[in-house]
């Protein structure tokens, strides 16, 4: 069975309503996502400011460093916090994220247990500002924000890294969701093409439907061996509504929302994506197209006048498994 290549015919894929890269780019992203709104999601600092304005919960911003000379005030800025994260505003694929889990005298502790000095943090920030970790090497800002305290409910479902929930939001309607679990192969990162496990999540219940790694169906986590069927995401109602509210804030019609669960604060928007991938279809074992077309079939007032919770209710009714 493995080893042999399996090909599907375009007709079979069409029948299942699977959307391809060309269609996603041409009919959805180009059509529903206005380029001028891209900075709202590409620059995490703008995302955070907008989210605060719109009352959408995000990890709290402790401070932002825009210029090299501001690095001198770092010690003052960090004084109240023991735990924090420093990340580039326009970083890609988790590059340049420094997590500090505690202090030990003058030193700061990293999750791995190693310690660094304030000067190391300063150098990290300088590099961030000069674009070392950013898309295209552009000058960037360094954001210092709340370090998420991960919920224990995902113990055993993830290897090292941060499990997050990706929801595709189309015109404000959550249409499909998956959870991304990092593995040893993915080096603790939650990127599917690096070997993370994608678990399709039922929009109604927040329970696992099916899971894939490397494009193949899996039933248990490759490192921990936990049955993925048992995965059930708490606070699902809140998560799904949070994702739906990102539409008004970004005005992007085709959006991927990445949400994490904090032990104390509940669901928080970690970042947004204007070009969410298509692997979610494989994780859910379902094509996106019928759901997108269902939303496209709505009348304008139906789309414009509904509140986020009404949209969630509609999605739940329509897209139950």
């Amino acid at each position: 069975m493995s080893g042999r290549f399996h090909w599907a015919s375009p007709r079979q894929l069409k029948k299942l309503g699977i959307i391809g890269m060309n269609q996603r780019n041409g009919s959805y992203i180009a059509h529903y996502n206005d380029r001028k709104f891209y900075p709202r999601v590409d620059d995490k600092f703008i995302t955070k400011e907008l989210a605060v304005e719109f009352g959408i919960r995000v990890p709290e911003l402790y401070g932002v460093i825009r210029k090299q000379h501001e690095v001198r005030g770092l010690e003052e800025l960090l004084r109240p916090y023991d735990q924090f994260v420093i990340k580039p505003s326009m970083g890609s694929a988790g590059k340049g994220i420094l997590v500090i889990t505690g202090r030990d005298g003058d030193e700061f502790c990293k999750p791995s247990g190693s310690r660094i000095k304030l000067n190391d943090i300063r150098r990290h920030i300088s590099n961030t500002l000069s674009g070392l970790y950013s898309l295209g090497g552009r000058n960037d800002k360094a954001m210092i924000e709340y370090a998420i305290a991960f919920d224990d409910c995902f113990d055993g479902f993830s290897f090292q890294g941060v499990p997050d929930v990706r929801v595709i939001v189309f015109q404000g309607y959550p249409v499909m969701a998956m959870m991304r679990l990092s593995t040893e192969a993915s080096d603790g990162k939650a990127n599917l093409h690096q070997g993370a496990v994608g678990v399709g999540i039922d929009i109604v219940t927040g329970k696992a439907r099916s899971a894939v790694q490397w494009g193949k169906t899996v039933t248990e986590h490759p490192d921990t061996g936990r049955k993925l069927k048992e995965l059930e995401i708490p606070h699902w109602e809140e998560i799904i509504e949070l994702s739906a509210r990102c539409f008004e804030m970004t005005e992007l019609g085709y959006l991927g929302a990445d949400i994490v669960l904090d032990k104390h604060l509940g669901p928080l928007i970690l970042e947004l994506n204007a070009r969410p991938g298509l692997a979610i279809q494989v994780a859910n074992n379902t094509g996106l197209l019928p759901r997108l077309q269902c939303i496209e079939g709505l009348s304008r007032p139906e789309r414009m006048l509904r509140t986020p919770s009404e949209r969630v209710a509609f999605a739940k009714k329509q897209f139950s498994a």
Partner: protein
Amino acid sequence: MTAKIQLRFLIVILVSAGLGLTLVKHYRHGYPMVPRKQTAVWSVEARISFRAKGEAVKVNFAVPGTQELFGVLGESGSSQDYGFTAAAPLGEDEPLYRYVTWSQQEAKGQQELYYRIDVYQRPKELSWSLPEGRIVVDPQFDQAPLALSIKEVIGSAKERSADAASFTSQLIQILANADNQNSQTLLREADTELRRLKLLNTLINKAGYESHLIRALSLGDTQSRQPLQQMVLLVDRETNDRRLFEWGNPRPLDPEGFLAWQRGGAGLIEIFGGSGAKVDYSVIRQDLPLTFVLEQAANYGEDNLMNLSLSSLSFEQQSSFRLLLMIPFGALVVVIIRNIVGVKTSGTFMPILLAMAFLKTQLLTGMILFVIVVSVGLIMRAYLSRLDLLLVPRISAVVVVVIGIMVSFGLVGAKFDIPLMQSVTLFPTIILAWTVERLSVLWEEDGPREVITQTAGSLFVAIMAYMVMGNATLRYQAFVFPELLLVVLAVILALGQYSGYRLSELFRFAPLVKSAQGPKS
């Protein structure tokens, strides 16, 4: 919606403009679709010799006009001390024949004048309209004894013929028949070949067919001292068929291979102040590339459209345009492979630049060198990344490293005389450095797996682009018909609308189909 309609409209316009211009050039102007097509070019030189009487001399000499089967590349007349008046320019509404004139205030003794014309065989597709001939019938043919004989001869020839060609054959046979009373009557007056042909021409025209008297030169291989042949050209306007008839030969000759030097029966040469004129013709045949010949013809002014051609540029500019014109085809390959096949490449157009380097180094050499240089570059870059350099210094450092690799390759290649290593200099340095940089960033962010996938993808696209861009026929066509770029643009625009699955997605999403078909298996 309107954008979609606009785009379709644009595509239709681009395709029809591009293809239309190409087809016009091909059919109307004879530009061949395939390269290296040769055509015969004849240089015909007429030498006129005569004896001058020692007074003012003027020579009128009939020269070829617009030809159906031959194009004119140039003409000139030369002779010491004579003033030369060139013939009227060639054109659609020129007279039936043209003259060149030599003149001198005073000349004595043996004189020699030269006229030279270069003609080429036109491509078959071309057809030039022949001006209607105005034949003036000698009034004696309408009078008693001759008119009767003419009627009889035409009648019997018509009885035994079906069309113009068979009629003429019959006519020639009857006239050649020494026992035929009517022939004898008609031929009594016709004592020269010219007069006999005039008679034949008159008979044909009286029978209601169209024919012209012409003097033609047979263009075969190189030969000297050839006479002009006097013949009758039979024209069938309905079938656009032309036949040549000689006196006494009932078989028609194919007009191909004959240059019609003069049409109509007027004198070939008129000399004032001289006598004993003699004209010799010599023919030199050469085979030259058709496109070159057509450019020459364009420069001569036969055809103004072609003066805009790229061939009018200097040779150096031409060769850079030849490469430049292939880039759109490379871009088309990239679009097809990325958007239809779904191969991941590093950088959108890096494969095209790579293919251009391959065109210079040869494919295998280029690939080996590329892999080696990039691998060495990646190792060096891996070390540089540990030094936490900023972006611009980092890329600059990679450029220096890549140039270092190239120089050492060149040196080692020269030292041990390995041509493979020497051709490394043909790679664009900045592209290599940039590729190394990109791939190493990719390595850090997405791991070696992605680097290998994208490098292999880039190489695959580069090889495909190389094969398309290196195709001799396509290179030729893009250069001679640069308007084909509009067609390429239209195809790219059309592909930009493609929203179907990529080939790779048929594989990527296959598990969904499998589980949908049989969840139990």
